């Protein structure tokens, strides 16, 4: 609860200083993967290792969503046989993992980034193009209401 208040305080009182965008990494093809290079604007704000760990976990989650293997083939074949009508009633594996990613980002924001005056935006809200990191001005953060 205290953490949630922190996040809300952040968005109530703090002004946005700047935004940093972590772009996609296409070196492995069209799979969803973000660059893990540490942006220089965050150097004063967050620990490099922490940030890289967050990005690695995020990339792993997206890799899990897009994994081509037995399970996805089964899902695809079943869908094909039912003329793809099961997509209307069933949640796909990708959607399930996206929910997991949303929970992960919320948890990271609450535990790690909001106390540091940062906010990670779920990439799905930006069309899976970027990870947007909002840097808030460093004032009255954590000073409850």
């Amino acid at each position, binding site marked *: 609860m205290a953490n949630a208040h922190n996040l809300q305080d952040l968005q109530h009182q703090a002004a946005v200083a700047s935004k940093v965008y972590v772009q996609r990494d*296409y070196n492995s093809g069209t799979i969803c993967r973000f660059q893990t290079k540490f942006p220089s604007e965050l150097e004063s704000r967050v620990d490099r290792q922490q940030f890289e760990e967050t990005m690695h976990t995020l990339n792993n989650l997206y890799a899990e969503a897009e994994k081509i293997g037995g399970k996805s083939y089964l899902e*695809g074949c079943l869908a094909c046989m039912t003329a793809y009508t099961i997509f209307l009633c069933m949640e796909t594996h990708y959607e399930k993992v996206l929910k997991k990613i949303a929970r992960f980002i919320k948890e990271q924001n609450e535990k790690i980034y909001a106390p540091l005056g940062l906010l990670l935006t779920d990439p799905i809200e*930006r069309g899976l193009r970027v990870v*947007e990191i909002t840097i808030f001005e460093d004032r009255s953060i954590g000073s409850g209401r």
Partner: protein
Amino acid sequence: MKNCEYQQIDPRGISTPSSTQPCTENVQRPRRKWEVFPGKNRFYCDGRIILARQNGILPLTLGLIIVTSGLFFAFDCPFLVTHLTVCIPVIGGVLFVFVVTSLLQTSFTDPGILPRTLPDEAADIEKQIDTSGSSTYHPPPRTKEILINQQVVKLKYCFTCKMFRPPRTSHCSMCDNCVERFDHHCPWVGNCVGKRNYRFFYSFIVSLSFHTSFIFGCVVTHLTLRSQGGNGLVLALQENPASVVELVICFFSIWSILGLSGFHTYLVAFNLTTNEDIKGSWLSKRGAEDSGNPYTYDNIFTNCCATLCGPMPPSLIDRRGFLPPEDIPPAVAVDMGRPPFLAKNDTNMCTQRTKDLLERVFRSSELQGLWPTGTPKTAPGQELRVRPESRSPAPSSSAGPPTSSCSGSADGPLPTGCSGSANGFPPTGCSSSANVHPPTGCSGRQAPSMECPPVNSSKRPSLHSNNPAFRLASPSPSFTHNTIILGDAPDMGFIPLH
């Protein structure tokens, strides 16, 4: 109040304006994102169904299929059931269901549209373009080269969507959207074919091939049996006009559809798109099978499985999400025929605070000199089509001679809509071949869909017309409309005949 504020900042949160006083429904009703979608699409069922704006041919496709199948079930099946087997209408029925379901899913599914960038993100990209280029080799501005599986791939900058297009993404000028893994724009289904609906499209054409062949075979059997039992073929034809109609329809469509199925089976086996095949993106001297396609798994079975049975990616445009109430851009609202929805009801403190926050963000973008003040207030998430005079000051003149790649076709006189292969395939329904073959199907009947729709900006030039002659003479983008599509390599010129 706290909850209200938190949700309003979250762009995907559902804002409940019921806290403010009741006003006219237009002003207070929470609007969904599809209502302010900047692309040229139509939405039905409150955003659940998406179609291209020009979808007049879809009813024709549906009508042809339903009429032919209806005639088959009504006039041929009774005879064949009594003389042959009851399986015939059963198989016909199953195929019919498959065809119609696949068609509707292809038409109504988001093909993989990429949402346009927000102003902050676009500004960040612009900054990167300006500051990059420290190496000795300068690639043409507004392109980025990356290495995928040891193959150099050029990413082009999309002026409409204000981003570097991911690999295999192309901007469809019919729909005015960037579409992932863009295959082609198909007027027969009234939608683009891209990453998310390619499997439906493939299923549609394959099942339609079977269905057409099946009906054709059954009708021929029916007429043969009748002519043997009766007084000859001519009398049989005269007595069964419905069968004649089916015969004619099936005969003319079977060539196109079988050819198209074969072509797309080849594409699936080698993990190519129609767009890439036409432009010869991965051709090398070693031949098509051994080309430099960086996306292939080098195994036909794996390619097929990955394309058709891979995980189903989500829609990125969030059509049914709600907009924060005060962030509707007035210009877009006007285009939609609604009154401009400005933040008039600011009595609520939380809306005022949110507005301030957003204004600060907007001003900081302006100060960077990237968004002229003349631009109407753009909400995050709502990217307006920027008019020519309000373009970013960064010159784009050296973007290379662009060609408007309308609906994925290359730069030649290929009629748009369904752009197809030039590999010597017979002219097919949805894939119109190049100059040599007589245009049929899709290309021949292109005329109605080739006109530019009346669009929001009055200055949209005929670069958006599908007139091939005009496209060849398309000038550089510096003084024309922003939505110039950076076509691919201009050295392609006319469609290569492989």
